């Protein structure tokens, strides 16, 4: 006879931040709501037939209907006949790492609008390397500077692709 295995995980262990089933149900519900919204909007546009064939709303209306049907099927299955039990969607430590890259990216967009994409890129790369990667500050800043410079030379100078620019580029005459 072996000793009973403790059911609870030891202190400080990783806990799931969300269950797979919960996320799946929420996603399917959002898809259902989205399809319903589009069905309504296309019905407003016109889903019937006119002399020149189907009206603009016809095709998307029925696609949205199919989409809604599939998500209802998925919802019923997940809620009443779940195929798998209790798998985690994401663990807390994993979610933390995902947010470590997602939140700076989210901040990167408005900064791009104000300072231009090259300065924002420098800030994002240097900041991420220093605070998330724990890499020496001078190495991080040098890498970020070189990357931004290469991007600038590639897009702005060599290939003439226009990017959002800010005060720094204006000062340099671009």
């Amino acid at each position, binding site marked *: 006879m072996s000793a009973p295995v403790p059911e609870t995980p030891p202190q400080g262990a990783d806990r799931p931040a969300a269950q*797979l089933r919960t*996320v*799946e149900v929420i*996603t*399917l519900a959002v*898809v259902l709501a*989205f*399809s319903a919204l589009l069905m309504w*909007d*296309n019905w407003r*546009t016109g889903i019937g037939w006119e002399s*020149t*064939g*189907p009206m*603009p*709303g016809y*095709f*998307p209306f029925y*696609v*949205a209907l*199919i*989409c809604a049907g*599939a*998500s209802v099927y*998925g919802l019923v*299955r997940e809620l009443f006949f779940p195929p798998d039990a209790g798998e985690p*969607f*994401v663990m807390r430590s*994993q*979610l933390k*790492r*995902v947010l470590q*890259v*997602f939140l700076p*990216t*989210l901040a*990167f*967009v408005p900064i*791009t*609008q104000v300072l231009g*994409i090259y300065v924002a*890129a420098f800030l*994002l*790369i240097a900041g*991420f*390397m220093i605070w*998330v*990667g*724990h*890499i020496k500050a001078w190495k*991080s800043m040098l*890498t970020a500077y070189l*990357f931004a410079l290469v*991007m600038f030379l*590639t*897009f702005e100078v060599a*290939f003439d*692709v*226009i*990017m959002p620019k800010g005060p720094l580029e204006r000062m340099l005459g671009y």
Partner: protein
Amino acid sequence: MESLGLLLLGFKVLLTWKTLALMMVGLTLGIFVGVLPGLGGPNGVAILLPLTFTMDPTSAIVMLSCIYWGALFGGAITSILFNIPGEAWSVATTFDGYPMAQQGKAAEALTAAFTSSFIGSLVAVLLITFLAPRIADFALKFGPPEFFAVYLLTFCSFVGLGKEDKHKTIISMALGLLLAGIGMDTVSGQLRMTFGSAELMRGVNFLVAVIGLFGISEILLTMEESLSLRGHAAKISLSVVLRVWKSLPKYWATLLRSSVIGCWLGITPGGAIAASFMGYNLAKRFSKDKESFGKGRIEGVFAPETAAHASGTAALLPMLALGIPGSGTAAILLGGLMVWGLNPGPLLFVEHKEFVWGLIASMYLGNIVGLVMVLSTVPFFAAVLRVPFAAIAPMIVVSCAIGAFAIQNAMFDIWLMLGFGVLGYVFKKISIPLAPLTLALVLGSRAEDAFRLSMIGAEGDLRVFWSNSLVGTITTLAFVLLFWPWIARAFALAARIVAPRTAR
């Protein structure tokens, strides 16, 4: 042999210093993108696409397809040295490739992988050279009903043959079709599903969606795994290459079998992943020494790599001849063609001969140059993998943002890309496949146009899709594929009922 003459024309278009230089740049970038975990064929092509916007279409497509070849070669480095499949179809390569690297035979495994990729692609390119013009010629007779039937066939085969839950594939595809419909309706010019937003009037750009769905979401997934990369070093010497090449004739059956499987599944939409596993499993089944598979057998590298690359390349056949991409990457290349104002499909072979044959010729040349390049630069690219991910992740994010912005010069598109990134992350985790969404997004408006034009022609009679034997066959085949799981089950049941009687 009209194809050969046209192929020569293609080489003539290609053989300028500028194009050759672009090829080298494309290959280098491609290998780089392929080596990095979290990027790969479709993501790399999508992110680097904006670089080509200012080029002429031929240079642009040559560079893009070289990025693609490079990414395919690069993926093998990550799978073999680091046991991380760069793409879903590289998974089977890790089965025997990584054990070989562990046994100190990394150079052999890499040479085998590169060589078999080369062989697989070459067979598929030969197929494209001789078959694509025929198919395109045949498809010139297609009217809107036939085209809609072919689109339907593509969509249905994804639902019927896909391994994911059917309702998830349908949701993914329907969302793609809906997103494609946002903005100006191409037939009537009326706005729809914009909810009064000026930003949505432009519609949801396919490439912005792809960069988010594949690029950003991969970064999020890779961060979640917190990869600590520990790989094997490798340096390929000429003697190893020659030794592996000398052993090639021994494996002719495996190579041939995998090439055929690859070509066949590549033309069917969504087949590359299935092809690599099927190639591997069949090689195992036909082998006299089944036990040694998975423990570092060179045949276990040859089989899946040949099949995966044959199918990855063959996926370009329906894209060129019919305007229907057979894989995610083919879909992105198709999106590129449209950006340059080219209309993919059978007319391309008539109206833009130089472009089409330049592209096909670049497949030959890109493959050969790529093979030589990748064999000689493995140590350098393997070193790339030792760069900390904390430096690579933000660089990829910035590249994605640059790519998304450059397509339409719109800030809104960067936000949209982020939204698609989160969507892709969630969808991948709850196993809603992304390939159907990508395909539907790129084909959506063309499918709808074909449907509406057929309806206008037939005055709203749905029987137009069975009005002649050609369109009728395609439509029926589409429905057969859609309900394939049930049909297969019915056949199995029937066989079980009949079998005992015949056995006696």
